[in-house]
């Protein structure tokens, strides 16, 4: 192999088309094929627009809620409709608006800010979007079947079990939301890898725009925070479909287990929503001050500590459930601590203001609105961390006020700032400053009128989630004013929509870098080319547009950088070292395809069919989905060649080593899977700890089979290690044999684990059911290992993989190792149960 191969000499489904220009290679598909686009710009915009549509729907539901509460004893909505409306309001806002729209902004902005031509897994982006869209449609469609979920967005058991919510309304929620969450988790993994592995040459972690740090931490939080809810939802759905008694106290289940799992997700969720929005603020603020963010390092430290500490306060949503006072004090103390990193960020923003003469633009107005509202929301949050106060305020309108201050102040106001700030980037035209100021003041006044009074309403004893209230106990006028305020807020949003539609045709055309920002997404004239960079410029500072006179001094396409001279006729971008940002590889990116869309659709059919109890259709959907994934991954590898990227960088394509983007993605996926396993283990230990007498009734695992399963796990681990060495050594035949050995070991692991707990009755006790659930999860991973090994073997046997292309085996080895450790952990737990006894 020569150092620099000829373009034609690599294999791949898509032979390079070197005769095409870079514009032609990156051309967006048109017509019906538009739907097959995988570009981060298209997918990001779709996330943003779809998220905004859900915002409008959920906002409309909020207006229904406020209208119902305008007077005591109102009959505008009956109780059932009201319950559906407030449930869907919360659900849509939290799951289908806040997180997806922020991820949309991240998907749209991150590659451009970091100097990549596209997001690192474009097809995964498309898959995530369609999962989100179909999941959202499933949830919304419940209105058509008159089966909208009505158990609250928190879905507390036992209210949402079959006994108290017969029918399919809860299934719509559980299945639709779980499906939409897949989108969030895939986007999270993709963003982690995109930020770590695809940055401009020289952009070390400390040179990244602060937005990328915020998104990086958020993505990690999603990867760890969503799994508890996914597990919770699956357990509850298994309870509803199969009658497994995870939450039934009569057989050792516990309704509080659901609350723990839900809030283990639900509390970090708030910060998952807040952090990207704060990242937007930290991006917008320096632009209008004209100086870099003050205290970059402090903010990074604060974001990291926020990301961690926010996982330690889930139980402050459970202060009234009768937990031991000692637990309450722990969570109370942990809750107050989150004020510190928040304070650091707020004061870093304020210190940035002091650096220069801020320009008062519409985005700045929204940023200032954020500062006011969010600080107050944070302060009431600290109040709620006080246990005795919480006992009074919990589940009252005080909490409603608090959470809207935090979420609308901490997320919606920055989001509107972001709309005004990045609108020229997306549409090429400026939104109206004049209307924008009206939008701001309407929203600001309307918001405070609506929610400030709710603090008082709550402390006057009005509980949340009540469809009606009696007259004359001090809530009438407060509610009336809150409702009027909500109409003003809605008017502001309506005016924004008008402005947005107006500006598409009549807005002033935006010039290049219209706000005089310093980050790289503004390098090209607005509505830039689809591949972001003709050449990826080396980056020395955090605000390259301010500090590098080359950038705005030249035409954007003439800015010097790597990859200018590469004309392989493939979509490709530069891959970097995660820490230092120095280029280490060239990443070949896929072209437009319908496969991810088809896969998402097949899974959507499977999920929807499960709601409709059409299980054969569901199985067909799952099989089709698996087929989709297989086709998706079937194309030959691009590894094994080396190319000259210019500027002295001669780099391998899709390199095979630990820093490969594929490998980091595999590790990221393992992180998600371990969070899922961790949630199940939490459930096991929790039930065992809380109901000793029911634990004693659960049959102990069989010692022999448990031992054998651990042995099989160990074998799998060793085989995986060998498989990696063989892959690195590039021995194709031996690797095929190792694949088959991994398959056998996976089967052995599954069988031994199942035989170990064969006497445990999943319907007998909740602990038994959870043991089977854990087994099911590990078995699923073993099945994926098996399928992947089979897939790799098949590709090698059919000659799709050539020399130097063992990346799939390299990654499989990592996955198999992770699975083997899962088997060892599970086996260890079973062993402990056998030896120590469950009693």
């Amino acid at each position, binding site marked *: 192999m020569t150092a620099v191969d000829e373009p034609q000499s690599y294999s791949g489904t898509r032979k390079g088309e070197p005769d095409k220009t870079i514009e032609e290679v990156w051309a967006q598909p048109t017509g019906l094929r538009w739907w097959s686009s995988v570009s981060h710009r298209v997918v990001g915009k779709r996330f943003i627009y779809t998220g905004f549509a859900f915002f409008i729907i959920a906002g409309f539901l909020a207006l229904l809620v406020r209208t119902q509460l305008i007077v005591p004893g109102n009959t505008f909505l009956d109780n059932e409709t009201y319950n559906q409306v407030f449930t869907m309001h919360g659900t849509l806002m939290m799951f289908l608006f806040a997180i997806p729209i922020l991820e949309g902004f991240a998907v749209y902005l991150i590659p451009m800010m970091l100097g990549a031509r596209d997001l690192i897994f474009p097809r995964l982006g498309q898959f995530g979007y369609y999962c989100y869209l179909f999941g959202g449609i499933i949830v919304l469609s419940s209105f058509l079947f008159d089966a909208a979920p009505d158990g609250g967005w928190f879905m507390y058991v036992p209210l949402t079990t079959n006994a108290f919510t017969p029918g399919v309304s809860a299934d719509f929620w559980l299945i639709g939301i779980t499906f939409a969450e897949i989108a969030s988790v895939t986007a999270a993994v993709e963003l982690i890898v995109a930020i770590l592995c695809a940055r401009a040459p020289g952009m*070390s*972690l*400390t040179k990244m725009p602060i937005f990328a740090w915020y998104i990086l931490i958020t993505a990690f939080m999603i990867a760890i925070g969503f799994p508890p809810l996914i597990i919770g939802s699956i357990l509850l759905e298994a309870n509803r479909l199969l009658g497994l008694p995870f939450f039934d106290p009569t057989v050792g289940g516990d309704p509080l287990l659901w609350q723990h799992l839900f809030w283990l997700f639900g509390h970090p969720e708030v910060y998952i929503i807040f952090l990207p929005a704060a990242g937007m603020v930290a991006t917008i603020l320096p632009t209008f001050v004209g100086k870099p963010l003050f205290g*970059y*390092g*402090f903010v*990074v*430290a*604060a974001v*990291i*500590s926020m*990301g*961690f*500490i926010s*996982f*330690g306060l889930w139980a402050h949503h459970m202060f009234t459930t*009768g937990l*031991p*006072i*000692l*637990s*309450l*004090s*722990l969570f*109370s*103390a*942990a809750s*107050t*601590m989150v004020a*510190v*990193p928040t304070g*650091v960020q707020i004061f870093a923003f304020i210190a940035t203001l002091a650096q220069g003469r801020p320009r008062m633009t519409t985005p700045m107005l929204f940023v200032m609105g954020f500062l006011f509202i969010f600080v107050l929301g944070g302060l009431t949050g600290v109040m709620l961390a006080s246990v005795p106060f919480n006992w009074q305020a919990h589940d009252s309108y005080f909490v409603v006020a608090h959470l809207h201050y935090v979420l609308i102040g901490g997320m919606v106001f920055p989001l509107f700032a972001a709309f005004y700030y990045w609108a020229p980037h997306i549409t090429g035209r400026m939104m109206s400053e004049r209307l924008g100021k009206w939008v701001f003041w309407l929203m600001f006044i309307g918001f405070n009128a609506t929610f400030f009074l709710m603090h008082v309403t709550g402390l006057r004893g009005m509980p949340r989630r009540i469809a009606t209230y009696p007259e004359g106990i001090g809530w009438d006028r407060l509610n009336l004013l809150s409702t009027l305020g909500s109409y003003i807020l809605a008017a502001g949003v309506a005016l924004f929509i008008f402005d947005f539609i107006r500006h598409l045709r009549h807005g002033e055309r935006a010039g290049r870098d219209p706000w005089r920002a310093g980050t790289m997404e503004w390098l090209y004239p607005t509505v830039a080319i689809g591949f972001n960079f003709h050449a990826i410029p080396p980056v020395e500072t955090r605000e390259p547009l301010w500090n590098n006179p080359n950038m705005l001094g030249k035409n954007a396409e003439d800015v010097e950088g790597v990859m200018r001279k590469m004309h392989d006729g493939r979509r490709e971008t530069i891959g970097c070292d995660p*820490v*230092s940002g120095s280029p280490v590889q060239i990443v070949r990116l896929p072209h437009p395809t319908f496969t991810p869309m088809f896969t998402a659709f097949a899974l959507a059919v499977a999920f929807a069919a499960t709601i409709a109890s059409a299980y054969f259709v569901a199985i067909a959907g799952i099989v089709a989905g698996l087929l989709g994934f297989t086709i998706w991954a079937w194309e030959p590898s691009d590894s094994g060649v080396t190319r000259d990227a210019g500027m002295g960088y001669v780099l391998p394509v899709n390199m095979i080593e630990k820093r490969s983007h594929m490998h980091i993605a595999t590790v990221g996926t393992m992180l998600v899977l371990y969070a899922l396993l961790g949630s199940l283990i939490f459930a096991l230990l*929790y039930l*065992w*700890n*809380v*109901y*000793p007498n029911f634990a004693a009734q659960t049959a102990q695992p069989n010692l022999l089979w448990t031992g054998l399963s651990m042995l099989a796990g160990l074998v799998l681990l060793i085989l995986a290690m060998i498989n990696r060495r063989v892959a690195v050594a590039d021995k194709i035949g031996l690797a095929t044999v190792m694949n088959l050995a991994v398959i056998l070991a996976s089967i052995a692991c599954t069988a031994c684990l199942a035989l170990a707990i064969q006497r445990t009755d999943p319907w007998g006790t909740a602990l038994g059911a959870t043991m089977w659930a854990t087994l099911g999860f590990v078995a699923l991973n073993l099945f994926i290992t098996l399928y992947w090994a089979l897939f790799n073997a098949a590709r090698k046997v059919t000659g799709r993989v050539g020399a130097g292309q063992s990346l799939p085996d390299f990654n499989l080895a990592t996955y198999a190792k992770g699975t083997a450790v899962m088997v060892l952990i599970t086996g260890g737990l079973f062993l402990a149960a056998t030896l120590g006894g469950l009693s």
Partner: protein
Amino acid sequence: MTALGRQVWGLTIPAVAWAAHFIAIYALISAACAPRGLIDIPLMFGLGIVATVLFGIAALWPTIRPPKGAALTGAIRVGGLIFAVAILFDVLPLIFSSGCGG
């Protein structure tokens, strides 16, 4: 490992120390105060203090001796401090209460 890599670790170690400490304290309280009553109060107290000292030092270590390199030293100091204080706060309830209470 590069200097910058070590600095990134310097940011992460206190965070992980805090997480381990939090899980330890939560597990100890759960073990002592749940119906099973796996351990008694004095043992919970003792183990809690041990964990605090251990993880507290781990969290403060990068603050006291930041890894070489200038890029993130300030952030490492602040981060370590925040997490050390958070560890202290998390153990306060253990110190100031006589039992599980309520």
